[in-house]
């Protein structure tokens, strides 16, 4: 017979469930990152780390040499993001809309093929596109030649005016699978009854997409936008593997990620400056945090989630 217990026992299982994730995440991610943010408040003066408050941020935004690089990177980064929003997500939605039509055959094949670039490493993606777009190797020029458009060819990756857009498009090529998958799933989860009701009302084909499906997948599009935002403002690898840490030509493809990397770890003869690098990293964090907050408090609340 149980003895009567007056107080509920401590629910040990809650800390037990949380502990592994909490400990690993805190120890290996949070503490090092806090260390990085802390670094941004210090400066190396004669080999000593000295607390300088916000001086590094002042340099970054105030000193014309730093500020010029910073704003260049930020503007490029914004353009990089805009290209993704304008190209990647609409293509993703289009592909998903096509894939979700009922009677289509070979769905799995298309889905898998289009997702393949997403699983490739940046090393492969960078190398492949550099080769294809290379004026020397001649894949792109000879393909354009074949359709009589050779004159359109330009060494896109080497021209300041095209390089960033080209890279953004490569990145779109690589990642279009993610919005496609998520939107596809969202479309599949629209109940058939709603679509059947639309058919009965004579809303079919493209107008069905605009009038019925699109409003219902808006929350998913919102999520994708914010994932794209976070991803783009953390972008680094693709640009690094195609254009190197100096993000050429003439910094035309420099984004916050490459700027931070170069500053933090140094490059070639340029010595690493972890303090300034951390300052850039902290600003990146703030930018992403602001973007996410705008989304969470400004946009998401207005996107209605429909109960099916």
């Amino acid at each position, binding site marked *: *017979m*149980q003895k*009567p*217990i*007056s*107080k*509920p*026992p401590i629910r040990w299982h809650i800390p037990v469930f949380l502990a592994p994730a909490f400990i690993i995440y805190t120890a290996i991610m949070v503490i090092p990152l806090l260390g990085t943010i802390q670094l941004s408040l210090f400066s190396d003066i004669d080999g000593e780390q000295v607390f300088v408050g916000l001086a590094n941020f002042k340099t970054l935004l105030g000193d014309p040499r730093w500020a010029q690089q910073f704003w260049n990177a930020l503007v490029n980064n914004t353009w990089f993001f805009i290209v993704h929003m304008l190209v990647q997500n609409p293509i993703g939605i289009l592909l998903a809309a096509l894939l979700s039509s009922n009677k289509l055959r070979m769905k799995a094949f298309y889905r898998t093929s289009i997702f393949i670039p997403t699983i490739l490493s940046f090393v492969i993606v960078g190398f492949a596109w550099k080769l294809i777009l290379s004026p020397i190797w001649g894949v792109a020029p000879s393909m354009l030649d074949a359709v009589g458009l050779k004159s359109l060819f330009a060494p896109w990756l080497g021209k300041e005016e095209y390089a960033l857009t080209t890279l953004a498009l490569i990145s779109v090529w690589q990642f279009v699978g993610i919005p496609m998958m998520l939107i596809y799933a969202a479309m599949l989860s629209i109940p058939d009854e709603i679509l059947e009701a639309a058919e009965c009302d004579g809303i079919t084909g493209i107008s069905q997409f605009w009038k019925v499906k699109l409003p219902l997948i808006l929350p998913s599009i919102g999520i994708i936008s914010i994932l794209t935002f976070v991803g783009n403002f953390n972008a680094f690898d693709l640009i690094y593997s195609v254009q190197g840490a100096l993000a050429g030509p003439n910094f035309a493809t420099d984004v916050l990620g490459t700027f931070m990397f170069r500053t933090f770890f140094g490059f070639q003869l340029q010595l690493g400056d972890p303090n300034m690098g951390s300052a850039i990293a902290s600003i990146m964090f703030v930018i992403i945090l602001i973007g996410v907050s705008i989304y969470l408090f400004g946009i998401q609340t207005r996107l209605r989630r429909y109960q099916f």
Partner: protein
Amino acid sequence: MGSLSLKNIRKSFGNVEVIKGIDLDVKEGELVIFVGPSGCGKSTLLRIIAGLETETSGTIEIDGNTVNGQSPSMRGISMVFQTYALYPHLTVRDNMSLGLKQAKRPKDLIKKRVDFASAMLSLDDYLERRPAELSGGQRQRVAIGRAIVRQPKLFLFDEPLSNLDAALRVNTRLEIASLHRQLSATMVYVTHDQTEAMTLADRIVVLNNGVIEQVGTPMELYNKPKNKFVAGFIGSPQMNFIPASCLEMSDAETVGIRPENITFDGAKADLTGKVSHIEQLGGDTNIYADCGEAGLICIRLFGQHEAEVDSTISLHFDRDKMFKFDKDGNTIN
């Protein structure tokens, strides 16, 4: 079989108090039903009894033992859920025996009990199937079987019939009733459906806003509701409430009259109204009449009757069967 006693049970979620001091005794072998509108706290109370929710204060005794703080499985209860909650990866037999296996009971005992329950619920043919291969009614029977096998001191039912269609609901209701008789088990049953409550319960507990409005046998509640809430909640179609002023009665704020206690009688008319809708149920007929300030009034007549929509009718109320309520909604005797 055991008794249940609740003493001053309170429960708050954050600053919101959802159970506001409940005292209740359930005798051995009794089937007690909690009814109330959604959000009244009836499910929370059931879950507190089960130990799935921790009470903020108060004492729970099952079979004379205080069980506060004990885990659900130690309380000697079993529970049947609205969504069946069968383990999708286990067969019917394993679903029923899991609790006993967990308690390390001997194999032959488990088998005996499962066989007993499956025979009782005619589940013998389905013992090796998985839940996904069963119909809704079969699944609910498995859930009930799982409860029986544990031979609990106390059965708890959480709206067990809500997910079934109308015909099955009646059948299963009968099954539960016969189960109660056969096992003479103590049962606590939660529903929002007063018909279910009336047909099944030994005693009904009407809950509203986290407090007990009234406890009693179905007929006690029907005949002697303590207040307007209980009067309105028990009985179908619902009791008509009429402002006392319309009937020129000064000793009450509101009067209540059940639809079956109204007759057509032009000579002794208490009110006149216009027929707005008729429901022909075959066995009886419900007529709804718009009586101006007195509101929409439902009249229940036995047998089949005809009436023209928009025709004017005179209503007579059986004065002996009228209820009077004061400003606070309490019944005036």
